């Protein structure tokens, strides 16, 4: 039974990775999960310098989901390379670094310094582009094009993944843009901007007012977007958003994902990733599937018209 998948030139022993920001820097969960069993570990978004993030409260539960407004809190590139990466290097598992910046130059520098040191770099483009009045790269096509074009030149050894935001009106054409500019893969979906209010105090549940919705609630939106992107591009897709179990992971793969990332599920079930890997194997056995790659895009459909 072959579980191996390839994302760009990163080979994963199985299609299951962690979603950025939900697995710390790997060490936090190493007591609950054998990191060697994972397809890849994706770490919390890293910026050039350490960041404090948003004030608390930063999380709140919503129906079948949660909002987070962690913001950009992270240890910064230096500390990541010195203190966090060596731990992950003890494992035989590819490391993907999610990166975030205020402007194109930040991303370029991050890529230059990380290239070749980690198997893949994932650009989080949901961040506001400070030099352009704070509009997110995710919805400013020009800025996104420039960003990917420029970082592509810096990433010569690692695999370059662009992480798409579900805010896009037309996720398929955004993914085509990424492919054209040289992204090796796209990952989606990031969290959906959302909000909750405590009606007794009239205060927002998050100090930052708006946070990102994740968890099972968003799964049908993520599956739809992966399917739309799969119709549009040839590069591999990393699917995520509300994957809680093997069935959810397979749903994403049938829609077109080559690999899947597990986020919020880690909080609910710290061994979610490895449980999902086992569940995928069971499914393959049950359906006599010898190669996991057969599942990708395997949805059977035709639209009947009226």
């Amino acid at each position, binding site marked *: 039974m072959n579980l191996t998948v390839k994302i760009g030139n990163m080979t994963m022993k199985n299609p299951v990775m962690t979603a950025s*920001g*939900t*697995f*710390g820097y790997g060490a*936090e*969960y190493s*007591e*609950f999960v054998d990191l060697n069993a994972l397809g890849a570990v994706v770490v*919390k978004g890293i910026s050039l310098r350490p960041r*404090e*993030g948003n*004030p*608390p*409260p*930063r*999380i*709140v*539960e919503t*129906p*079948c*989901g*949660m909002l*987070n407004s*962690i913001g950009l*809190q992270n240890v910064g590139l230096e500390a990541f390379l010195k203190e966090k990466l060596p731990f992950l290097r003890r494992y035989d598992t590819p490391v993907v670094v999610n990166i975030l910046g205020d402007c194109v130059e930040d991303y370029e520098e991050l890529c230059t310094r990380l290239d070749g040191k980690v198997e893949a770099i994932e650009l989080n483009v949901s961040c506001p582009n400070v030099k352009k009045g704070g509009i997110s790269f995710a919805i400013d096509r020009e800025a996104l094009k420039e960003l990917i074009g420029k970082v592509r030149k810096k990433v010569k050894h690692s695999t370059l993944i662009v992480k798409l935001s579900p805010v896009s009106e037309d996720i398929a054409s955004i993914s085509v843009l990424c492919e054209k500019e040289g992204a090796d893969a796209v990952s989606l979906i990031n969290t959906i901007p959302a909000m909750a209010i405590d009606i007794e105090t009239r205060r927002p549940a998050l100090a930052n007012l708006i946070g990102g919705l994740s*968890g*099972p609630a968003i799964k049908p939106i993520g599956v739809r977007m992966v399917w739309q992107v799969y119709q549009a591009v040839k590069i591999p897709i990393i699917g995520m958003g509300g994957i*809680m179990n093997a069935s959810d992971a397979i749903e994403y793969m049938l829609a077109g994902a080559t690999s899947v990332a597990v986020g*919020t599920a*880690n*909080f*609910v*079930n*710290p*061994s979610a990733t490895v449980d999902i890997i086992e569940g995928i194997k069971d499914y393959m056995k049950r359906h006599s599937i010898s190669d996991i790659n057969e599942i990708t895009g395997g949805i059977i459909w035709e639209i009947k018209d009226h």
Partner: protein
Amino acid sequence: MSRRFTARLIEKRWLSSEHFLLRLVPEEKTPEPKPGQFYLLRPSDTYDPLLRRPFSIFRSSKGTIEFFIEKKGKGTTLLSELQKGKRLDCMGPLGRGFPLNILSQDSVVVAGGMGIASVFSLLEHFKDLIFIYGARTKEQLFFLDELSSLKRLITVTEDGSHGKRGNTVDALKEVIEEERVTSVFACGPEGMNQSVSRLLKSHSIEGYISFEERMACGVGACLGCVKETPQGMKRVCTEGPVFSVKEL
């Protein structure tokens, strides 16, 4: 020994219409909890509610762990409806507890309201100290029998229905003025915790206070449960829930 385990509910005891004790027996060997540490319990097998809920270890002995829980919302209501025999998905013990090595006859422990859940096991560990226990009314003071074996128990209620009328901070102030106090251990609502912290700082008394913050992972991975401190954001689930007053 794993900090992720299933445990069987062997006893549920109501202490008021809103407060109950859950006694669980882990089905595998798990590390001994220290006073002030907490567990994450999963209140439902479905995705609503989704996240685990944090509860302080109330008492533990011979392979059982006990939680004292107030019914607040969805999660605690579901927990209160569990039937004996039910298997629960647990994580713990988590976080930094109280430093037991500095407990002495000159220690004072303070609990406000549900703060009792967090300090009770401390009091079982060491009884030769002063315990200040406050609540809104006498109906919200629990375990008074068990607490009667302490060196000294001072109760305060907002309405004066038990002990002095007043709050725990005023009571602590009085004790500090009257007695030799070298360390204070506290857990209560955010406001009380803040006041206790200020009071101890102004008297330069060593203190450890247990805080609450909304949690997702409980293991330091999500950065959701941070508390702002002069040294930056600290994760309540791993750097806390018990913080030294010096850190605040």
